């Protein structure tokens, strides 16, 4: 199974939803209704399945807004600070997120895939 399929499998189990309801472009919180307790379960299962310790703060972008504020306060470029903090995200994807953030939480399934692919040995 590839990374996307493994992730879908885990998320369908944690959220008790059909695998078919989960797509690369699905929003994890906005559409699939995941909440912080679910992140704990997902991070634990990701770590087990992919064989390295998944940091739930990072994979679920828990500090995204704080980093935005930090860049603003210090007069830094928001995109480059976020790219430095979240090495697994492309600059293009970060821009996409910044333009989307007003509509709600930005994490999509494809971001989890990026994280796993980036750190997986």
């Amino acid at each position, binding site marked *: 199974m590839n990374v996307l399929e493994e992730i879908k499998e885990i998320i369908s189990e*944690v*959220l*008790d*939803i059909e695998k078919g309801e989960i797509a690369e472009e699905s929003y994890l919180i906005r559409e699939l209704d995941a909440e912080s*307790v*679910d992140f*704990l*379960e997902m*991070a*634990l299962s990701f770590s087990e399945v992919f064989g390295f310790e998944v940091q739930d703060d990072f994979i679920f972008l828990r500090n995204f807004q704080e980093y935005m504020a930090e860049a603003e306060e210090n007069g830094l470029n928001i995109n480059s600070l976020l790219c430095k903090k979240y090495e697994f995200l492309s600059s293009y994807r970060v821009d996409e997120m910044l333009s989307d953030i007003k509509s709600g939480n930005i994490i999509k399934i494809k971001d989890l895939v990026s994280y796993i692919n980036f750190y997986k040995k």
Partner: protein
Amino acid sequence: MKRRVVITGTGYFSAIGNNISDVIDNIKNDNINESSISLERDVKVRVVDAFNVKDFTGRDKKVKYLNRGAQFGVAAALKAFVNSGIDKNIEKAGLITSFGPNLDIGGEINSVSNGTISKKDLNALWLLRFLPNTATSVIASRTGFHGENSTVSTACASSLNAIGEAFRKIKDGYLDVALTGGGDSRVSYGGLLAYEMAGALSKSNIHRPFDHERDGFISGEGGAFLMLEELSHAQKRSANIFAEVKGFSLSLDNTSLTAPDPTGIYAERSMRNALSEANITPSSVDLISSHGTGTNLNDDVEADLIKRVYGEQSKAISIKSWSGHLSTACGALETSLSIDFMRSSFIPKIRGLKNPISDINFNLKNTDESIETVALQNFGFGGQNCALIIKKWNE
């Protein structure tokens, strides 16, 4: 004006069936779902057939945090909720539940050695499967109840205790509606080992309460919930009223951690106080649903108690002789079944009873008989005594 409290919904699961027609058929045909689990000997247990909690909850990510006993509780609560026809979002709707400890240590945890627990197959939040109030939260999320709540834990008195607390919350005006009951399963290696080492399980694998040959109980599993409601609230929505809760009382022995006080004086106090709250005499009780565990100590004390409070003529049953002992959930099952027995004019015999230890009127044959008032009693480890009086609704 005094607020009256009625029962407008029930839902239950047990080894003798999950609805009254199955229960009565199974009692008449002596058909119990029994199997065995091997400790150092084979221990008979009474289990709920083909139970899948998701048949009642549908898909729900919270269900993975429910142990088997909690699953019975949640499923029973949802059944009682639907049965009552109550709407979600009633302002003064509460949950008074009862759940015990999860003793399925071996089933929950892959391995423990030298104090280290293997993390294999554990959820991140595995602790929720051990917390007694997890089921209460799941029930709340499914019913939309936001009012007063608690998860009562008084050993085998727990769920009768919870029903009584719910009764008081409504009677005293803190709630208009309360979903109350519990679920439990000690049908696991850990649960049975605990009871076996405590000497409570029948060595002969025969549960025969109040019999000279009795030697303990058979463990059962299941759950039961009831919807309690303030009378005018129920009448306003034209609810189907099954019974009224008339009286309730609790007491403490302050003696042993497991055995009942041999004189039974505090248990007697709880029974008499419940009668006096119900404002009835002992002779107007038609049926006593005994604790009836079939242990040497309980039955001696309890037979004496029944005779002292109700006299020789009083009719007594032991629902545990059929369902097995549901531990914390026994009182809710016994109350729910008592309501259904009243509504069906049926009184089950005490299964296995051949040589009674007392001359009180133990029911030795299944009978079709009208019953109006039932007194229920449960006595928990730790000397926690509970009594409840219910009356069939005829008004």
